[in-house]
């Protein structure tokens, strides 16, 4: 392989890897499901690689990648809109602007959440694992545990609130729950 091409690949991947987490979080803010995120991320990676110019300043990569991500997410939503109702473009632009503003804090929060999730009590962890397992359905879970779906939703909601609260305390340097 040509050395120049190899250098380009390395330069691209270094930047892509460095920004992939933020990019994924950004896309997650714009499209409805995590399956959509997977599809859009593939398109983004393809477009970024095809249009990557190693001569561009590396510090501009994230902004450029976010711009590509926004366009790809919109294209994906337009395709979805033919068959089901999705957020309009104005709403997506509002969400994109908010998500860009939140990028750094989301990254800090991600690290905090990882810590909080690792210290979640066993029973709550078990509930999350059951609810988030592939193919899991809340109504089935409720039926097998003798609870109502609504009580499960509320329990999951409380755990999420706890996790967010834990992350805030973590970031504030206070006591970790």
């Amino acid at each position: 392989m040509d050395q120049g091409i190899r250098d380009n690949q390395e330069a691209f991947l270094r930047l892509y890897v460095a920004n992939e987490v933020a990019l994924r979080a950004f896309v997650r803010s714009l499209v409805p499901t995590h399956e959509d995120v997977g599809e859009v991320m593939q398109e983004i990676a393809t477009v970024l690689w095809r249009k990557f110019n190693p001569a561009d300043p590396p510090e501009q990569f994230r902004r450029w990648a976010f711009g590509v991500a926004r366009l790809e997410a919109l294209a994906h939503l337009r395709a979805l809109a033919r068959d089901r109702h999705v957020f309009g473009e104005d709403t997506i632009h509002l969400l994109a602007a908010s998500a860009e503003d939140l990028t750094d804090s989301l990254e800090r929060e991600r690290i905090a959440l990882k810590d909080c999730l690792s210290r979640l009590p066993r029973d709550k962890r078990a509930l999350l694992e059951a609810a988030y397992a592939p193919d899991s359905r809340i109504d089935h879970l409720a039926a097998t545990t003798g609870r109502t779906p609504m009580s499960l939703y509320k329990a999951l909601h409380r755990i999420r609130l706890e996790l967010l609260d834990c992350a805030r305390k973590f970031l504030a340097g206070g006591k970790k729950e």
Partner: protein
Amino acid sequence: MNEPLDLWELVSRLARGAASAGETRRLEEELRADPVFRAEYIRYLHLDAEIRASILAPAAQSEVNSSARLTSESNRLAVRQTLRGRVITVAAVCLLAFLAGLAGTSLVRALGPSYPHAMSRALPGLVGGGFDGPVGPIPRGFPSGRGFWSGDESEIVSTAAPVEGTGCLRFIQPGVDRTRPQGPAVSCDVFQVIDLNDIRWSIPWDSEAVLELSALFRDTRTTRSGRIVFLCQIFQFAEDPAEIAGTWPLNIPQAVGSAATLVASTGGEPDKWLPAQAKCILSPAARFAVVQIGAKRPSPSFSLGHQYADKVALSLRTQPSLPSKISK
């Protein structure tokens, strides 16, 4: 996060791909009106992704969920993304690539294992799901009545080794929405309208009912190229079917229930039939259903013609009533 629980339940449903059109609209209104809620919404989705990654990570250490394929004229390079989407192997960074296409990858949600006491039966309302009738083109446009296939340019053929019976459906040419004639023609879709009124009488009063739409898709391209996305979707409506036919697809937001499954293929496995199944709880308000199967091409310049569907079936699964009903 002080919003009422039901708002976060809507967010949760949206994140699971289970939100109805009305629910999506309500969320959208809130998001547009309230920047604080917008930020919390983004945080919530972020948290949801983190939990999912945390739960799935142990099982995903060696599993590749998706592949981003990058091409140039002279070489290819791929970035692997694990289920966490975060672990990109350093070796791949420098050592080039492997191609891992998306052929046959089921992209969307399949619902869980069967409820132990559930009973399932095929609904006779869906007619010709095996495409074993006379070969030839199917009627164009949205169906004007019930019990027959109609849609974009497609035909029943007997030459493509149907999975069973004598024929299968061949997708030929995407159609433009008549409500958006200037829009891109990206997807070749075929529809059937099904009456749900009769089946209501057969559902035990203490049971819940789930509509299950299944289909098999096949992509006979022998080499890998652009990604085709097959669609298997069901909508439930309360309105008169005749009104729906006149305004499709603008009336999709009026659906009282819906479910969809997408299956992607990049070709290279011409003999493989790809299963798809979409399920949704039968809405108490639903009077009829619209079944949609389709093939979406990757770009307007891409030609369909090697894509097929067969064994489309709609069944009704009833199960003892859960402690509380899930409804729209």
